[in-house]
């Protein structure tokens, strides 16, 4: 199976993958290397509990797992999600706006196949970023005294746990790209939603009356820091992956029904594509 569209999409994604992977990895690695320098100070500072909860921490910041929960796992997923939105909307809506999608769709290939190959490239790109972050952890975790609180395998597990959330937002990016008039609108609308969902999850953790709202945010189901303390919650993972599959299926239907280059919202394209 030659999968030319997938291979081409991977070529287009390569620099984004490298920069996001190296950037996030370097940041994660730096936080581990800096931990011993902060450790004494952090033991003396008593942060308000709400403050820690807002950033995903659960207690004593001088403990490596809590330190990384607030310094890495609170930010890394939203940055990774931004990548997901930029990459997925770029692969579909971006190519349509650029005009290069015509060159592919004018060939004897089905739209579903084009979309699935592009989605495949996105999944592999996110996986590659994850691998780069894991490689970066390996340059720090084994060499820094973390008091036996964290192992390399545990941080790798938390890193891999970001993927279902990233794939979910990527799938939404393909769906938005198949419905919106342009890549800018697709990416913009989805970024606003992603940031809002992130803030909802953060505020709902600290404001008791709206605590239930966090369950509506995809971030709640992204078991990053939680993997370090509670292990993987499989139904969270299944929910995000199921959501991603559903979004890709809807994206495929919408893309099949879409009028290419029409530059208008096409909210009912999925009906036309059935």
């Amino acid at each position, binding site marked *: 199976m*030659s999968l*030319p*569209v997938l291979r*081409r999409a991977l*070529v*287009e994604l390569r620099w984004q993958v490298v920069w996001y992977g190296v950037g996030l990895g370097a940041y994660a690695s730096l936080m581990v290397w800096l931990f011993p320098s902060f450790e004494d100070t952090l033991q003396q500072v008593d942060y308000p509990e709400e403050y820690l909860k807002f950033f995903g921490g659960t207690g004593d910041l001088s403990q490596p797992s809590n330190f990384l929960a607030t310094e890495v796992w609170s930010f890394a997923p939203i940055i990774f999600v931004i990548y997901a939105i930029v990459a997925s909307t770029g692969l579909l809506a971006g*190519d349509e706006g*650029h*005009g*290069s999608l*015509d*060159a*592919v*769709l*004018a*060939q*004897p*290939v*089905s739209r579903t196949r084009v979309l699935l190959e592009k989605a495949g490239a996105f999944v592999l790109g996110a996986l590659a970023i994850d691998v780069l972050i894991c490689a970066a952890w390996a340059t720090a975790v084994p060499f820094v005294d973390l008091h036996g609180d964290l192992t390399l395998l545990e941080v790798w597990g938390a890193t891999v746990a970001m993927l279902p959330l990233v794939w979910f937002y990527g799938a939404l990016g393909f769906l938005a790209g198949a419905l919106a008039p342009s890549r800018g609108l697709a990416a913009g609308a989805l970024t606003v939603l992603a940031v809002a969902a992130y803030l909802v999850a953060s505020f709902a953790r600290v404001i008791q009356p709206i605590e239930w709202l966090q369950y509506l945010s995809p971030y709640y189901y992204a078991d990053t820091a939680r993997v370090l303390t509670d292990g993987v919650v499989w139904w969270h993972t299944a929910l995000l992956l199921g959501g991603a599959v559903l979004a890709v299926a809807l994206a495929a239907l919408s893309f099949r029904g879409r*009028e*290419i*280059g*029409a530059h208008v919202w096409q909210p009912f394209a999925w009906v*036309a594509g059935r």
Partner: protein
Amino acid sequence: MDASTPALLIEGLTKRYGDVEALRGIDVRVERGEIFGFLGPNGAGKSTAIRLILDLIRPTAGRIAVFGVDCQRAAVEARRSVGYLPSDPTYPNGMTAAEVFAYAAAVRRQPLDRPYVDGLVRRLQLDPTRHVRDLSRGNRQKVGLVQALSTRAPLLILDEPTTGLDPLVQEEVEGILRDVAAEGRTVFFSSHILAEVEAVCSRATILRDGRVVDTFDLAEQRRLAPLRVEVILDRPLEDAATATLPATVRLLEHDGARLVFESHDEGMDGLVKWLARYHVERLISREPTLEDLFIRYYHAQDGAQDAPARPAATGRAAS
């Protein structure tokens, strides 16, 4: 498939964008092996029709079939028979021309005919190792043309194929299209430039405001349409003298010693005999161009008072 099935059949094709009607029930029939011109000014609906053929957009009403295969219900199968050149070819960033050809072949799942592509590249003087984004408009057009031709598809759909090309390359493209037709392949050629359609097409449809104005056989049109004859005499001629012109000849212009006539073949002898009584310094006879016809149609459509009537017979083809 029946050999009489047309290469392209468009029936009652309508496309609306909200209140705007881009195509209003057009009918076109393109036979196998012909080079068919799809003529019209910018905005007439040519590219819309082509995007509908390729199923990039969907018709409001009507039907399109390529070699009998429905372009909406069996779009992938229909596109298997089509090589397409868009009006403004755009390819993924960072690709060289050679990569564009290989990529398109891979997407089509067919081997690239390298000797054929190399021959086209040489004829069009294209450097296939250069990145497409660095190429001029004309060179990108060549990339698109080679890609469309490299498919060896039995139907080529070319949207304004000579845009941005210099005259020498345009001539080469016309030669390539004749070669394609000689192989028995069909070319559907959209253009707003009448001369290039006239140079290569056997039949043409004129589209205006989303409607087919006419479809005609170019050779027949040339045979039946009047010749234009410009004469310069050695001295000015009085208006009254033209009253003796044969009835088969029509005087279009009279400016002193310069006269312009229009006549069909059967009136030519009478014109020459009438001119024999004067001293002729120069005589220029020009075959009617498609442009002449085009302008007539447009004037007639606009209801211009001085518009000459449409020629009685222009080989109008049923479509």
